[in-house]
């Protein structure tokens, strides 16, 4: 095997994308986190006696619910951003439109994640 890479490049192991396996690893890490979180979300919403204002707020103001929901929102949007980025890489050709898609995906994920976390906290701290 010939070594065309410089020793420094090999030590860093970041490859041509300059990011190494960080995208791959982050996606798997958030995937593992989301397994229990999604199961929790589906089954706890299913177990609610109703979906009215008072019931939902009471449920969300419980500390365990609030913590789980914040974890889910953060891990969920993190994972969604990485996944949608991959979809953009595969289907959007052209540097400009792909960059615009990246920016849009990242901004949308950040805005919605912060909105979600803030809303949960507002409900939780209102008691």
């Amino acid at each position: 095997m010939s070594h065309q890479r410089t020793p420094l490049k090999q030590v860093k192991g970041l490859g041509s994308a300059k990011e190494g396996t960080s995208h791959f690893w982050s996606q798997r890490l958030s995937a593992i986190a989301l397994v229990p979180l999604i199961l929790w979300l589906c089954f706890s919403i299913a177990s609610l006696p109703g979906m009215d204002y008072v019931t939902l707020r009471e449920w969300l103001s419980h500390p365990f619910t609030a913590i789980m929901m914040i974890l889910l929102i953060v891990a969920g949007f993190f994972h969604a951003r990485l996944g949608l980025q991959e979809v953009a890489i595969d289907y959007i050709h052209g540097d400009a439109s792909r960059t615009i898609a990246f920016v849009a995906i990242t901004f949308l994920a950040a805005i919605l994640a912060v909105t979600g976390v803030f809303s949960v906290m507002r409900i939780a701290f209102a008691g």
Partner: protein
Amino acid sequence: MATARTDKRPLSPHLQHYKLPLTAWLSISHRATGIANSVAIMLLVILIASAAGTPGGYDMVAGIVDSWFGKLVLFGFTLTLYYHLCNGIRHLFWDVGYGFKLQTARTSAFVCLASAAALSIITWLVAAAS
């Protein structure tokens, strides 16, 4: 380079003629359900954000969720979430080097589909009971 191909070697399978095997359908579905789940978490934030506001705003959002159409969409989301979850676990096994044999991949495909369907049905049974 517009010369016609003279050899009789098979061309790469064209999507309009090639019958995708089950494993390929699961692969493309993983991506499709991933996009659907991104929409689901967006809607979840809208619901929570409206619950953080006034009862009037929340009732408008909850009214849509509680309609037959909303419930249908919600049922669809349980399917896409559980499918992506189960198939994601299948992917994690591949990531660590297990399950690549053709027969294993076919079996895990069936297990994934059955688990996603079962989890969705159980979730809605719990919802109906509570």
